[in-house]
């Protein structure tokens, strides 16, 4: 990443707003990226960071979480890396539509689907020693117009 920022945060929910502010500010350096796409990226990164914090909390881990932000040509890449226990991204059972009977009993199930919708590319590498979520948003004007 030629133009990169690395942010390392304590695994605490109080830092989520800071991550969002940094990501939105850094993304706005590319003046071709519209406000809606910045909002999309901000939410997607926030979701990935929330999952990372939750993963550390489940382990009782005080390890820090790393967020790498890069502007590279026509794309913005953000990686969120935790040192949690990992999960199998292929084995996630998607929650059904909210109109489905009994679905309101379950408050979760929005995070990963949101990331998949909001980012142009998403890659999840997860193993026993941690998870890295890579989110990519294209900044080309052609893509902006198609939204």
């Amino acid at each position, binding site marked *: 990443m030629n133009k990169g920022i690395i942010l390392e945060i304590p695994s605490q*929910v*109080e830092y*989520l*707003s800071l991550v*969002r502010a940094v990501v939105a500010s850094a993304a706005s350096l590319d003046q071709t990226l519209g406000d*809606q796409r910045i*909002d999309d990226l*901000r*939410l997607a990164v*926030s*979701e990935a960071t*929330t999952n990372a*914090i*939750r993963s550390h909390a489940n382990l009782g881990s005080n390890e820090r979480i790393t967020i790498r932000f890069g502007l590279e040509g026509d794309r913005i890449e953000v990686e969120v890396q935790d040192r949690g226990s990992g999960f199998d991204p292929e084995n996630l059972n998607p929650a059904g*539509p*909210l*109109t489905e009977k009994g679905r*309101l*009993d*379950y*408050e*979760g199930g*929005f*995070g990963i*689907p*949101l990331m998949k*919708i*909001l980012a142009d590319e998403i890659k999840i590498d997860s193993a026993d020693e941690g998870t890295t979520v890579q989110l990519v948003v294209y900044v080309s004007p052609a893509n902006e117009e198609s939204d």
Partner: protein
Amino acid sequence: MMLSLSHSQIGEWNIIHIVGELDMATGPQLRQEIVRQVTDGNTYIVVDLENVDFIDSTGLGILVGGLKRTKSIGGDLCCTGLSDNLKEVFKLTGLDTVLVNVDLSEDPNTWKQTT
């Protein structure tokens, strides 16, 4: 960062006005407030999101939980004041199919869902 919460009343509806960002850090405040309202017998709740410019999956989940909680005792939960950005998030997640976005200037008798 904390949410700022305040209240008003329109007919039988209790309006919870929120200022701030609704995420995993602040969401528990809203959940606690909804539980408190229901415990106090206020089963018709409107969550005013006019001054909320960010909501994440935790915030959405709390609204789902609030809807379930109020409906299970014969009440209801609606939202108001959604920005275009929040409307988009509601649409992407399907929350707009179960949570009514009401206009506070309209007759509150029209806010109740039929389902």
